């Protein structure tokens, strides 16, 4: 198993200063830029420690929000490409459907791959609903734009003999020939996220690494859809390395201390949905059928415990979150057992995207969390043989 240390780089000092919205319309007057600088340096320091401890690293971006100060993944990737030595650096993700210029994306990511000496994992995402009022990208049809940007970036990274032409529905170029080209050929590994079974099957056909967040003990159907798509194309089951899962992790030698850390890390989930209500579901973000069901009050819960109890991940207790496989929390043995149990349920899950810091967790607690995990949990997870479940497409 690979473990990626992740923090959203929050500006948590603002978390108690909002009037119902931490995103999009929270005035930036609230940010003290000097303190923001201190926090960025702290988070980079923690990633450097994670690199030394044997973690990989995951970065992301959100916009106009106190939940995540990183407004462009490229800055964090650039810093880490130079400063870290061993870690693979995953961006999950780059919201390419929002970007005006995928040529620029291809150039940036190739350069980062070169500077990092081939350590980039390249995650492309649709973006959460709240990004649309910020970027002003039309949420209607954004996945068509996403896939054209994806196709373009792949072609730009893997074409080497002469400039090529691109005249698509969304993007137009006449002399595409990026310098430098990426180290990893034909291109850095592609990752993406989904919560949708049809999309999961498509990702399986493509063989990309598929990550889910907050899906807990409702993850297996998504993975099985991926497996069906993968096996239909290749005739064999995907390895555990094709799956990734974002889990919150709070570990300590003392269970009570671990729970205290868990409570602070759960602050990520409790803050992430604090956003002006109309920004939560822009038109076209969900399908017509899902929106029609929502109008009729028929929205299905998203997260479940192992025994099928629905859990609201934004409001659930630490125990609820542990039961739902959203938070792995306890002593090193307990955390190890929870993760193995979850991966077994998944039929194999080879990339833990570990949120080892969130919100008000201090630097000292974060470092302790990382150290204990690296020394007492990670080696056992790396040795453990993942199951490889098979699913044949119907």
């Amino acid at each position: 198993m690979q473990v990626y240390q992740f923090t959203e780089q929050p500006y948590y000092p603002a978390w108690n200063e909002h009037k119902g919205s931490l995103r999009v319309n929270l005035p930036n007057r609230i940010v003290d830029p000097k303190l923001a600088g201190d926090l960025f340096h702290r988070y980079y320091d923690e990633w450097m420690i994670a690199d030394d401890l044997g973690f990989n690293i995951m970065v992301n971006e959100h916009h106009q929000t106190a939940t995540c100060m990183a407004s462009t993944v490229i800055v964090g990737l650039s810093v880490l490409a130079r400063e870290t030595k061993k870690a693979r650096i995953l961006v999950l993700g780059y919201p390419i459907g929002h970007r005006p210029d995928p040529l620029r994306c291809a150039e940036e990511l190739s350069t980062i791959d070169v500077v990092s000496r081939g350590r980039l994992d390249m995650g492309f995402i649709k973006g959460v609903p709240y990004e649309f009022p910020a970027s002003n990208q039309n949420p209607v049809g954004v996945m068509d734009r996403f896939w054209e940007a994806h196709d373009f970036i792949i072609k730009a990274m893997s074409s080497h003999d002469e400039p090529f032409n691109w005249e698509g529905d969304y993007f137009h170029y006449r002399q595409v020939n990026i310098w430098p080209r990426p180290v990893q050929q034909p291109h850095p590994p592609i990752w993406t996220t989904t919560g949708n079974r049809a999309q999961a099957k498509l990702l399986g056909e493509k063989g990309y690494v598929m990550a889910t967040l907050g899906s807990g003990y409702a993850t297996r159907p998504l993975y099985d859809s991926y497996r069906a798509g993968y096996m239909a194309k290749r005739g064999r089951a995907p390895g555990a390395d094709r799956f990734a899962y974002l889990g919150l992790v709070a570990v300590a030698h003392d269970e009570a201390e671990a729970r205290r850390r868990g409570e602070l890390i759960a602050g990520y989930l409790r803050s992430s949905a604090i956003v002006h209500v109309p920004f939560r579901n822009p038109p076209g973000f969900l399908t017509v059928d899902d929106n029609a069901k929502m109008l009729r009050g028929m929205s299905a819960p998203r997260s479940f415990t192992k025994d099928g109890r629905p859990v609201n991940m934004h409001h659930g207790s630490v125990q609820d979150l542990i039961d739902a496989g959203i938070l792995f929390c306890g002593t090193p043995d307990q955390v190890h057992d929870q993760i193995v149990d979850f991966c077994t349920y998944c039929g194999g899950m080879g990339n833990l995207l570990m949120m080892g810091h969130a919100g008000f967790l201090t630097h000292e607690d974060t470092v302790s969390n990382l150290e204990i995990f690296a020394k007492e949990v990670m080696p056992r997870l790396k040795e453990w043989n993942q199951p490889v479940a098979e699913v044949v497409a119907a």
Partner: protein
Amino acid sequence: MSADAVTSLVVNGATIEAIERGQGRPILFLHPGIGIEANAPVLTELARGGRLLAPSHPGFGTSSLPKGMTTVDDLSYFYLDVLEQLDLRDVLVVGIGLGAWIAAEIAVKDSSRLSQLVMANAIGVKVGDRETRDIVDIWSLMPDELNALAYADPQKGQRDYKNLPEVESIAAARNREATARFCWSPYMHNPKLKNRLHRIRIPTLFLWGTADRILSEKYGRAYCAMIAGARFETIENAGHFPHIEQPEEFARRTLAFASAAAPEAPRAKRA
């Protein structure tokens, strides 16, 4: 729309639903972003003045959405195809909100089949400076907040979504998505339209529900001034959807304008 009142048209590969009612000169009714209900009283009132055709725009209601149709420009060309296919002439075009924008986009391209234009609480142009939002950002509002701004009587905007039949909730979801498809950015307008409005030479009436707080009356009057000879009339006790809040008054004003403007003079002049 309920099925019994609705016909189906296939135009240029798209299948659209349309309410057809009444006899006489053709009246093309272009609905706003919220769509149109077959039992809307305004349709009965308007059908007293002619043969009313009230389609759901491509992507709205149950009407299909041809691939690549992404702008109001595309919708206007689609309706030019409709007019041609049905060979409609001497058409009174009545649009509200988004429908009025479509009407203007049709008329600037080709008004040879049109005789009058009625534009109610119309969107479609940019009036203020770049830092002044002419039109309230409807996608940053809660449904109750939106109704409070859109209607003179916000109760008129309430729908019991939880108990809607599935087909109607799907239509409501499609209407919301389609409105964003065509209106998201540039927000509710076409920057090119202003410089094309001089091409509208048929009699044009702006009807304006005065309680509209999504669009100001000032916006409406500035828009009206861009079309030579266009009249501006207000409707009291109505907001952004005067055809819903004051259907009889809306139809009375529309038909009165159409018959007053009917003399042959304007058309003879054009020929």
